[in-house]
Every structure is written in C-alpha cells, then in structure tokens.
C-alpha cells in the first residue's frame, strides 16, 4: 500500500508550485491557475486523510466536493472581473495595475 506520506508530499509540492505560480505570474489568469493548483493540493490532502483515517464516513470527500464547487464559482466571478478590467485598461498584467498605492 502506498504510505500516506507520499500523498502528502505530492500535495505539499503541488501547493508550493501553486504558490510560486501565484507569486511570479504576470498575467492575472496565470495567478488564477496557480490558485487552482493550490486548491487541488488541498483536495488531495483531504481525500488522502479521508481514505487513510475513516474510509466509512468520507468527510474529506464532501469537503473536497465543496471546495471544487466553490473553485468553480470563484473562477467564474474572477474571470468576469478580469474581463471587466480588461475592457477598461486593455491589460491584465498585475504589476501594471497599481494606480492606487501608498
């Protein structure tokens, strides 16, 4: 059987790649992808714990399902916002969107 640690390791690695993606992508949608990666990492964790702890009551799975639905809703709203800002300033590079500072 595959030990639990491996899954957790994979999730951790995925999580950190997601973080790196979020911190360095110039494009807003790139950041969104990074966030999706982080969410997937969390899901792996949840499912792995559910599987290894008490496979009968799968709270982890339910949690993962809700995370997925929320991710979907979030993506929808996020992209709508990105499109609305694109319509005004023709660019979605996050480092250029800094009218408001200090």
């Amino acid at each position: 059987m595959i030990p639990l640690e491996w899954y957790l390791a994979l999730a951790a690695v995925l999580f950190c790649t997601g973080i790196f993606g979020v911190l360095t992508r110039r494009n807003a949608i790139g950041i969104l992808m990074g966030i999706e990666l982080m969410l997937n990492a969390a899901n792996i964790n949840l499912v792995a714990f559910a599987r290894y702890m008490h496979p009968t009551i799968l709270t982890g799975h339910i949690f993962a399902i809700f995370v997925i639905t929320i991710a979907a809703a979030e993506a929808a709203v996020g992209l709508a916002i990105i499109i609305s800002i694109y319509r005004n300033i023709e660019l979605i590079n996050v480092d250029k969107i800094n009218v408001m500072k200090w």
Partner: protein
Amino acid sequence: MCDFSKNIMELTWLIPVLPILAFGLILLTGRRGPGEGAYIGIAGIAASFLLSLAVTVITVASALGGHEFHPFTHSVVWATLGNIDVRMGFAVDQLTVMMLMVVTTVTLLVQVYSIGYMHGDPRYPRYYAYLSLFSAAMLSLVISDNLLLFYMSWELVGLASYLLIGFWFEKPSAMRAAKKAFIVTRLGDVGLFLGLIVLFWYTGTVNMQEMFAAVPSLMGTTLKIASVALPVLPLAGILLFAGAVGKSAQFPLHVWLPDAMEGPTPVSALIHAATMVAAGVYLVGRMYPVFAYEPHSITLTVVTVIGVTTAIMAATIATVQHDIKRVLAYSTISQLGYMMFGLGVGGYTAGLLHLMTHAFFKANLFLGSGSVIHGTGTQDMRQMGGLSKKMPTTYWTFLIATAALMGLPFTSGFFSKDEILLEAFHTSLPIFWLGLGAAFLTAFYMTRLVALTFWGEARDPSIHAHESPRVMTIPLIVLAVLSLVSGYIAWPSNNIFHHLVHFGDGAAVPFSWTVMLLATSAAFLGLGLGLALYLRPVISPSIFREKLPWAYNLLQNKFYFDEFYWAVLVVPLFWITKVLARFDARIVDGLVNGVGYATLGLSIAYSWFDRVVVDGIVNLVGGATRISGRVLRYGQTGVLQNYALVAFTGVLVLAWFYLFR
C-alpha cells in the same frame, strides 16, 4: 480706667481706617472733591491726629498714674487653619502712643505743606490719595498687635512709597527709582517674611505678646538645615532685622533711598525721613524681646555693627554731595544707623527717643529744602547761595533744625544723641568713638550745606528766590518748635520718657558729664571745620579734592555701590533669564515636543535635515513617527504580487518564528 476712656481706646482701630476712607473718597471724587482732594486728605489725617492725641493722653495718664500698666488689646479671629486660630487686632502701649503722635503730627504738617508745594500739579488729587493710603498703612503698622498685620501694613507702606516716588512717572529716572525702591525693600521684606514664618512656626502664634512669652522656652532650640544646626532665636532675629535693613535703608540695602529723592519733596520729608524709614527702627524696638533674648545677643551685635557702619559710610558720602536732597538723604541714612546702633548697644529708650526727635527735625530740614527748591527751582547747591536774606523764615527754621541734627545743647537732638552715645560709652568704646566721628561728620556736612545754600552771595544770577507762601512756612515753624522742645521730656534728672518707654527693669543709665562734653565738643569741632572751609575760606573747600582725589571720587560715586550691585546682581540675573527663556523655548519645548506630535504640522514644510539645524534638538519621536509612517507607507506598492509576497513571508516568519523560537 473709667469706661469713657475704655470706649475711646476701643476706637483705636479707627485711626488707620479714617485715612483709608479719605483715600477711597479722593479716588472717587477725584478733581471734583473739596480742594481737589486735599481737604479730604487733611481732614482724614486730622481726625486720626485728634483720636491718637486722646489715646496718648489716656495712656500716658494711666502709665504715670503709678499702678501697673498693661497694653490695651482687642483682637478678632482672622482665619482658622487646621486647628490654629490666627487672631488679628490692635494693641496700644507707650511705644505705640509715641509712634502714633510722631506719625500723625508729621503727616498732618506735610499734607498742609503739600497744598503749597504741589499746587497746580496735573495729578494733584491722586497725590493726596496716595498720601492718605500711606498714612493709613503706617498707622495700622504702628497699632498692630501681631506680626502678620504688621507685615501686611509694612508691605502696603512699601507700595505707597513706590507710588509716591514714581509720582511723576513721565520722568524715566523717577520710574526707575520707584521700581528700584520697591524691589530693594522687597528683598529685605523677604527676610522679614521668613522671620515672621519661623516665629509663627516655633511659637505657634503670630501675636507679639504670646511670642515674647514663648521666647525663653526657645532659647536652646536649633533648626537643622542640611546638617547645619542654626539656633532659632538669632536666626529669627537676624531675618527680622533684614526686613528693617531693607526698609530703613541700612548698609547693604541703602542704595534705594538716595534715588527715592526723585519723588516730590514733601513725600521725601514724610516717608524718607520721618515715618517709613523709621518703621525699621520701630520693628527692632517693638520686637526687642526677640532681639535681646540675652544681654549681648548675637542679633544685637549684628544690629550695632550694621548701624555703625551705615552711620559712618552715609556721613562720609554726604560730605561731598551737591544735591541738597541727596545730602539730607544720606544724613537720614546716617541718623538711622545711629538709632540702630543705639538700640544695638542696649539703649532701647535712647534709640526710640532719637527716632522721635529725628523725625521732627529731619522733616523740618526736608520741608525747608523743599521751600528752597520751590523758591529757587533747583536742587543743586552750587547754584544757590545767599538765600538767608530772601527766605528768612525758611532760613531760621532750617538753622534750628540743623542745630538739633548736630546735637548742639538745648536742642532735642542733643538729648537723644547724647543718650545713645552714653549707652555706647557703657557697652563698647570703639562704637562710642565711631559714634563721635559720625557726629563730627554730621556737624561738618550740615554746616557745609547751610553755608552753601543760605550764606554768601547768590552764585547763580538767573535765580531770583522768593519766600514760600504761608501755607508752607507755618508747618516749618511748628516743626522747628518741636525740634527744640521734643527733647526736653527726656531731661536727665527726671526722665519722663524713660519712665514711659523702657525695656525690662533696667534703670536709666546714669548721666555722665564726660560723655556730654565729648559729644558737644565733637559737634562744635565739625561746625568750626565747616565754617572754616565754607564761610570765610581760610582753607579752600577744594583742598580735599586735590589732596585725596581718589577718596573724593570714591565718595562722589557713593562707594560705587550702585555699579557693584548692577554688575553682581542685575546683569547676571538678566543673563540667566535670557538663557533660561531660550532654553525653555528650544530644548525643553523641543525635547518634550519630541514626545508630542504637534510640530508635525510645522515640519511638513521643512526638509528633515533643515529642521535638525533650525530646531536644535529635533522633535525626535515626532519626526521618527512621521518617517516610519512614510517608510511603511511605501511598502504599499499597489502591485498585488508584492502584497501576496508580504503575506506569504508573514506566514513563513510566523511559522518559523514559533517553531524555532
């Protein structure tokens, strides 16, 4: 004492109140009052004079009536603090009565005299208002039974003298003289204030009689200040005497009296000759039990030493003065020194007698000089001369008063000065000889004065002197009579005055011819020298100037006291205040502002560096807060990923910090 005299005595508190009512009335009515305020003033003081006359008669009668006399007192609770009741009231005994008579007579005469002298002055009513205020304060000082009321009236007298010296305040010199007088006397008053408090502290009461009763019990007690044990009684005595030194212009604090001559001459006559300056002597007299707690106590020796030095110093300076009023001023200082050392050597009666007689003839001299000034329009003796023909009454009264001052026989001065020298002779010879020297000098400068003003021919043709009006000459005459007569009550054989005013049971010192002869000869010697120099110039008056030029201008500049005080006290004081004010505005304000942020509003305009230079110590915390605010603010770059980076580093730090703490 039958009840009629009792209820007159009850009215004693009215004596000071009447002049105050006059003061108030004059202020209210101003120019519209009768005689532009003069008559109200005179009426007030006349009423006080009559009342004090009545009180004097009753007191003297009961005192001479043989049975034991105890002072008539009446007091009321003025304030209660903790459970100490501070009582205030008045007490009448022989000393009080003597002072009452002196003060009321001289004041009445001066007020009458002033009608003429001050005629036509723009602020005439205000002059009388101040005079009434002065007399009220002086009278309340005399009758007060406790040291607190005494001190309060003492300060009010100081105020009145400030107002009167600075009466013609347009003159900058008068203005400065008034301020100088008040501050210098104030310096002395602080001593009196502390003495009063020390006594109040140790005896638990302000009432004089209770204080005297407590004196024996305080003999040994000492006050420990920072490991120095000061005996209480001499400390209190010396502090009280400091007040007297200030007020009676004794040696260290005498500098204000000559400048006080800036005031109108009647004022000088009243305040700076007869009454106010005598208050210091009266203080020593009144508080004598505290001073003389043991026969030759330290306090008395201090009084003597100060008295003698003042007498000698003032007399020497007087010999070279050109301004007639300054000569008289220094003469007063010297005579006060006389009284002081009289009291110092134990001559309680002698000192007070001299106080009384001196009041009369010095007032006469001042008023005389006043009429001379009124007539000639100048105070400088070098411009005068030959006035005896033009102003006969002034001349004759002046002559009598000069004789009294010199202590020539058959004048009141003779009796009082002789008694002092007698007492001095019995206690310490050096003091006696110094006293003689002072008498000699007094005779010399008075003769010089009379010669320069009245004898010889008029030196300045432009001055055509005229005799003063009768309203001025009558007081002169009265005073001249008093200068002669007042001494006789102390006729050596049956010394009524001693009987009335004496300290303890000590019998009067036996009359000794030698002392009398020596004193008179000293006086005549001075007279002769004066005549020799100034009447028929056997020796030219200026030999003194050639022979001892340094001594001459030393005296001319009044031993450089003024300059000395200015350099030692006033200049450093101004320097300290300047430094402190700058210190306060810059450093304390800057430092404390460092904690406050108020200057932030200001500093926005300055660059940070400039503010450091301009403001001295920069507003440290204020500036620091502002800078840290600005630095942190720039952390907000507006770029989302920087925020995310900060967030994740935050998480990392928190995790790392906690795990590896």
